[in-house]
């Protein structure tokens, strides 16, 4: 079984003290004080791919659109059990919307004759949740989104569980090749040990630029996008919002007072 798993490196905003500031262009975020990690849902996609490989044999190829810095997350995926990696890196890819990104990814994936392509269901930075679905459309294969469970039930057939609201799991059958966008929580992503990452550094990360993808300039970046990001803005604080000031002890006390006053506790 050949599996491709797409991973994205994103700013780690899990720390409540993370400072997110719009940069001077208004179209980007100041990245100076960020640390970077694998996108959370992609981490689950990597684990699901490795689990399938361990059960059914085959190989897992890690694919990423990003700069050299993204090697960090690629190597972690390789250390967990990925066999090879492709990184698509060209400054002309900047500004790509999910459709253009899917096109870039497809250019690398199309020659791999894989059975399953996995992506995370949603990127934590831009929140589009669209790359996997766009990729399936470009590849002309079926897809399932928000997948939590994957089981091989026969030659070219998978049974998958999609997470719906209220914790419902929708069970579907899907033919391969297909694209699955993986939801968080379906497995427990393993740890990539430091020795494993060092060992994985020996595995080749194939780098492809625009020329290598065979795409033209007008198919990538803003030119190749159907949606173009115009500007970021911070929502205005509304009249009904009350920001509690003070240290955690004080604000917790004030909050408890408000909840009590409103009869909520």
């Amino acid at each position, binding site marked *: 079984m050949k599996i491709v798993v797409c991973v994205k490196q994103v700013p780690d905003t899990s*720390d409540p003290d993370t400072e997110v500031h719009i940069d001077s262009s208004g179209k980007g975020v100041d990245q100076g*004080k960020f*640390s970077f*990690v694998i996108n959370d849902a992609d981490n689950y996609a990597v684990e699901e791919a490795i689990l399938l490989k361990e059960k059914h044999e085959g190989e897992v190829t890690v694919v990423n659109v990003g700069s050299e810095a993204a090697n960090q997350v690629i190597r972690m995926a390789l250390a967990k059990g990925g066999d090879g990696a492709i990184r698509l890196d060209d400054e002309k890819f900047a500004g790509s919307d999910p459709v253009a990104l899917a096109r870039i990814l497809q250019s690398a994936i199309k020659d791999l004759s894989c059975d399953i392509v996995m992506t995370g269901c949603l990127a934590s930075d831009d929140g589009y949740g669209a790359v996997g679905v766009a990729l399936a459309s470009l590849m002309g294969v079926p897809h399932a989104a928000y997948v939590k469970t994957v089981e091989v039930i026969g030659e070219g057939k998978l049974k998958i569980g999609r997470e719906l609201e209220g914790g419902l799991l929708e069970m579907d059958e899907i033919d391969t090749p297909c694209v699955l966008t993986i939801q968080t929580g379906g497995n427990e992503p393993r*740890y*990539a*040990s*430091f020795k494993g990452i060092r060992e994985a550094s020996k595995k080749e990360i194939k780098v492809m630029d625009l020329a290598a993808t065979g795409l033209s300039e007008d198919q990538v970046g803003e030119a190749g996008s159907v949606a173009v990001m115009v500007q970021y803005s911070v929502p205005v604080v509304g009249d009904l919002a009350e920001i509690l000031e003070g240290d955690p002890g004080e604000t917790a006390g004030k909050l408890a007072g408000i909840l009590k006053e409103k009869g909520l506790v």
Partner: protein
Amino acid sequence: MSIEHGVFVEKYDLLGCIQCGRCTGGCPVTERTALNVRRFVYDTVDDSRLEELSESPDIWDCTTCNTCAIRCPKGLEPFEVLLGLRAMRAEEGNIEQTAITALESMFNNGNPWGKAAAKRMDWAEGLENVRVLEEGEKADVLLHICCTGAYDPKIMPIVKKLVRVLNAAGVDFGFIGTEEKHCGSEARRLGEEGLFEYFDEENTELFGRYDVKRLVTLSPHCFNSFKNEYTNLALPVQHYTQLIAELLEDGKLELTKEISSKVVFHDPCYLGKKNLVFDEPRYVLGKIKGVELTEFYRSKERSLCCEGGGGKMWVESESKAPRLAETRVADAHDLGAQTIAVACPFCWLTIEDAIKAKGFEEEMQVKDILELLDEAL
């Protein structure tokens, strides 16, 4: 993970064990968990059982407080066997998610707390003249704050007090700045030998960039790693209590104000039991006017661990029995102590929690020795 025959036997000198049971007999976590370290020393002689033993949740109960090692009549370090088993789990990637989060953050950010490296000097906000050393710059002391001091909002003010105290004593000191990294101690305790070796190499190279006479740490955990576990570090290493004891002895630090408080000192395991630094913290506290210093029944070599070390900040024991820090706080309460003095960020945090859990906030406080010194300046 395949273990070559006899690796544990040789690495931990398992055949040196006479199964006397002094290790388990003194192990503080046996009060609240089923951990039996003697049994692990016995069982790990059999290579074929290592895989199974590494899957026991008991191996994560150990706080690496060193009691078993200090009590061992054969000079073994029984708890290291548990770290060896943890290392097997870590190498396979099969460890607790909370530990994974901490270890991945150490790798990505240089700290276990999920904080950006660029924010590592935020603790110094509002302080003037905090000296971040340039490459090749001279200073008597290179201060290593490490991760909990740099990022925990409750410990960050204590680092400021260290700066104030050292300035008052006229010490020539500087910091690494945002390039400072985790010492690796907790990586090793969580079983990540490889990551520890990485920090050993990186930090040794980093410290070598400065023309400094000694390395001084805020935390006993970093102190221990730099002093005993780094393979190629030439710099003399001190815990801050040792430096301050020297300054007081030499008359360079004057403490003028009186603090009227009954104080009991809680020995941090990595300063006390691990490195036998018992006298300096007591000497420093004894120099503060008005401090009435009392002792726990279990102190120095017999000191009770607070359960903050050994990676326990990230791996919770299943036991619902009272934490050892709560026992410690209850003991301090019985002594009538108003202040539990500590010299370790982990101790500060666990004991503060325990004071709250026991409902003693009105009666007693945890204070780092630096907080008391700052008040006494």
